[in-house]
């Protein structure tokens, strides 16, 4: 039995530490710990609720926009503001662009190096690499000459002897299984994806002024004016630019990202049997395709339990609770209570070892994340959950792409419950969104043509129009999964604020009943060739796309009534 510590877990957002027991070449137990805390919800208390989204957005700069939108929905839900159709469409476009960009960056820049041996690419034959590339896609950057150039650039880089971010890594590890040609192709696409993400996210700058941290949201709508006859507004010229960006994204995703995922997965099919985790999947649903309450969501909500895809449950947010049994917070009722977020009660109270330390006491409290549960059960959130729920709901586009991927790999749907399944689901979600974005843009253009220039519900902008006290909840499907913000407004200012975010669901520690969170559960059984080199552990952790800064929160100690909120 070997006890290993991976800290820092790199190629993620934020600060994650994992401790694990390894016995006979496999993980037998694991503990996930978040090691950073800021207290943003506490900072939000007493502030103007219309400002909250600007603060909340800074919870995370990788998944920028997502906390902005959840915050705005929570405040709109509380005060009764109704954003007009153009605002909904602009938000859908911004959010879907965020998901597309984030997923591409995750696959190529955060996750690929777990599967791709950069040094091995040096021994690739560029002609064979070209044949490989042309056999899986008609993407034009595929000639022998092109790959010769990429290889030469890589060789120059390595020959200079300063490997920078690629130094000290796990090159040559036996768990790397791609032939040199596939590695060279992946290195080329790693570099191309850097250019892609920079270009594509200009969509955010057009609609939000800048990225990261867009600045065009408003409680009640958007700040981006829409008017085909004005230079300072979103006009037909802007629509044309957006269309080009969306087309290019669809091109890159369908001709590079999807073929790469399928090609790489083909060499690692055993990972379709590794990393399943808790087997419960939670989706709030998102991308409203209408403006009335209860309008259909492009990604439907639902819950799948125990990997049973014959049943889909409705989500009831009132069944969400959080435990602090193993988190560095206190509850007045003691560590064995579990509270709904709207009754949130938390005081940070660090009881771990004083830094510097070697080991955490994992029998006690060991993380800055709480343990969210639904009906007392841990839930996995994220692209896999979304694609499973959409698949089971009969979502036509999702079904088409999921079935296509499963058939290309020659595996059945149960292969989705795995490390590899998360990677495939993320890619499928990306292609589905790039297909859908055009129709939101079309709708925006049609509204404009019809003379609907509304972007904001001004009727609730003045705090004098608000009730003396109001509660609201805002939900969003962020790239990493189900996100909820809860706000309590009193006398025009924030009395209380709380978030339960995707990485809290996925990365949280054990709860009061001792149930492991999804990261912890998914690591059980993960093979470890060399405990000194945590490559396989990184594979499963990265398949969730960890985002730790998002996960940590604190709420106020005041008890308050549970409020019924509609699902946005």
């Amino acid at each position, binding site marked *: 039995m070997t006890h290993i510590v991976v800290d*820092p877990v*790199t*190629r*993620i*957002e*934020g600060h994650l530490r994992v401790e694990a027991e390894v016995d006979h070449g496999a993980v037998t137990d694991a503990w996930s710990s978040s*090691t*950073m805390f*800021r*207290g943003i919800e*506490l*900072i939000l208390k007493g*502030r103007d609720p219309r*400002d909250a989204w*600007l603060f909340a957005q800074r919870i*995370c*700069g*990788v998944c920028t926009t997502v906390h902005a939108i959840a915050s705005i929905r929570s405040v709109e839900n509380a005060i009764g503001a109704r954003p007009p159709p153009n605002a909904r469409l602009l938000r859908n476009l911004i959010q879907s662009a965020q998901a597309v960009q984030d997923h591409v960056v995750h696959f190529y*820049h*955060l996750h690929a190096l777990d599967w791709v041996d950069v040094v091995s690419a040096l021994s690739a034959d560029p002609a064979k690499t070209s044949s490989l590339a042309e056999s899986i896609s008609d993407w034009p950057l595929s000639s022998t000459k092109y790959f010769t*150039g990429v290889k030469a*650039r890589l060789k120059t880089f390595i020959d200079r002897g*300063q*490997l*920078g*971010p*690629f*130094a*000290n*890594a796990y090159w040559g590890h036996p768990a790397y299984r791609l032939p040199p040609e596939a590695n060279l192709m992946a290195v080329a696409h790693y570099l191309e994806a*850097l250019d892609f*993400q*920079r270009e594509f*996210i*200009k969509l*955010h*700058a*057009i609609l*939000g*002024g*800048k990225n990261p*941290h867009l600045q*065009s949201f*408003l409680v009640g709508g958007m700040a*981006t*004016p829409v008017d085909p006859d*004005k230079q*300072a*507004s979103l006009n037909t010229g802007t629509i044309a630019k957006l269309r080009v960006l969306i087309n290019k994204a669809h091109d890159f995703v369908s001709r590079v990202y999807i073929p790469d995922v399928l090609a790489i997965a083909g060499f690692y099919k055993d990972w379709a049997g590794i990393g399943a985790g808790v087997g419960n999947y939670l989706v709030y649903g998102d991308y409203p395709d209408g403006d009335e309450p209860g309008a259909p969501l492009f990604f439907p909500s639902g819950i799948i339990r125990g990997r049973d895809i014959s049943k889909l449950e409705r989500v009831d947010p009132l069944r969400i609770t959080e435990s602090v049994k193993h988190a560095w917070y206190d509850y007045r009722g003691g560590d064995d209570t579990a509270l709904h977020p709207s009754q949130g009660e938390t005081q940070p109270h*660090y009881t771990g070892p*004083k*830094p*510097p330390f*070697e080991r955490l006491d994992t029998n006690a409290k060991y993380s800055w994340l709480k343990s969210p549960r639904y009906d007392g059960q841990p839930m996995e959130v994220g692209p896999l959950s979304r694609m499973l729920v959409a698949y089971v709901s009969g979502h036509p586009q999702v079904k088409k792409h999921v079935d296509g991927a499963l058939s290309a790999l020659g595996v059945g749907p149960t292969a989705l419950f795995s490390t590899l399944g998360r990677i495939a689901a993320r890619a499928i979600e990306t292609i589905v969104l790039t297909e859908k974005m055009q129709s939101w843009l079309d709708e925006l253009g049609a509204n404009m043509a019809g003379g609907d220039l*509304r*972007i*904001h519900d*001004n009727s609730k902008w003045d705090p004098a129009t608000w009730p003396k006290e109001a509660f609201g909840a805002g939900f969003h499907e962020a790239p990493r999964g189900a996100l909820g913000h809860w706000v309590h407004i009193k006398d025009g200012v924030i009395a209380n604020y709380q978030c339960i975010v995707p990485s809290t669901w996925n990365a949280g520690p054990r709860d009061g009943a001792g149930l492991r969170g999804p990261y912890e559960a998914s690591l059980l059984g993960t093979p470890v060739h060399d405990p000194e080199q*945590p490559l396989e552990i990184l594979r499963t952790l990265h398949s969730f796309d960890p985002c730790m800064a998002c996960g940590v929160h*604190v709420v106020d100690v005041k008890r308050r009534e549970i409020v019924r909120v509609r699902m946005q």
Partner: protein
Amino acid sequence: MAEPTKNWFAREMRRRGVSRRDFMSFCGGLAAYFSLPSSAAEKIADSLSNAKKPILVWLEFQDCAGNTESFLRSGRPNVAEIILELLSVDYHETIMAAAGKQAEAALGGVVKDHAGSYIAIVEGSIPTGADGAYCTIGGRSALAIAREVCGSAAATIAIGTCASFGGLPAAAPNPTGALGVSDAVPGLKHLVNLPACPTNPENLVALLTYYLTFKRWPELDSYNRPLFAHGKSIHDNCERRAHFDAGQYVENWGDEGHRTGYCLYKVGCKGPVTFHNCPTVRWNEGTNWPIGCGHPCIGCSEANFWDKMTPFYRHLEGVPGFGVASDLDKFGAVATVATAGAFVAHGVVQLGRRTLFKNVVFKGDPSASHESRKPAPGAVPPNDGPKNGGTP
């Protein structure tokens, strides 16, 4: 510079289809960015083609990785060029392949073997509460890591407003005792603050290029920010300034004035007290900027802006000419024009022919004049000022 180095670089540039002429044109562009004479381009070219890549370590503490993401949006040069050819980024948790012990060893190796010669970038604030337990990496506190790594660096860049001034975690009530680098690690001699939320990657590239070329920092303001990026107010360079001067304001979101591009002052714009080159450099390779898409400036490059600039949608009080806590609705366009002129004269101190690079031997006359960052007397002060730090 040794000849083989230049040969290597020339070969590499040729291989990538970049002619010497194109490269010199790029360097000339950078020289122009800093208002340097064209002869500086040669020096920049030499510096960028150095055989041994300068080492950079990038630390993340109480951060959101927004500055890292912003860095990934760098287009001139792009991030692949930076990490493969221009710098050796030996530690950056978000992009590095190694994890755990191997990552810690990479950082330890830099501090041990390259003390005094590497650049440290710090992203995120540093918590001082709970004995450092609010942020640990590899079991060590952010503060201990910052002391060691920045203390041995040739120079440190605090990137983003959190690392520069404490930023969001330090906003009231500052639950974790968060500080910017200059306050958490007092006495760092070679520290530059590059605030904004996040930092514009063009400013980071410009700052790094300047430092690598001249081995020292450009001229800084009293908050240790480079004047080339923070020497003028948003208001002074704003494309909507004419509407301010003409008394034309956005009254409601989506109204005729909003669609036409009127001034956002009345809906809360903090441009008059924010010193940043947003309006000229813009974002995402010049695509747009917040005011360009109809939202007010929130003052994100200023210290304590989360407390001092909020509520964000309340218009600034005390801007000269409008009187303290004045109600703009009382002012007609004529009055506004008159007072706007007073604001310019009163609020912005012209420093005339003060040169940007006073320590540089270049005799040329940089074409741009540079103004003080100080806001008008009586205007909302942008921040409380730096506690320490300084130029090399």
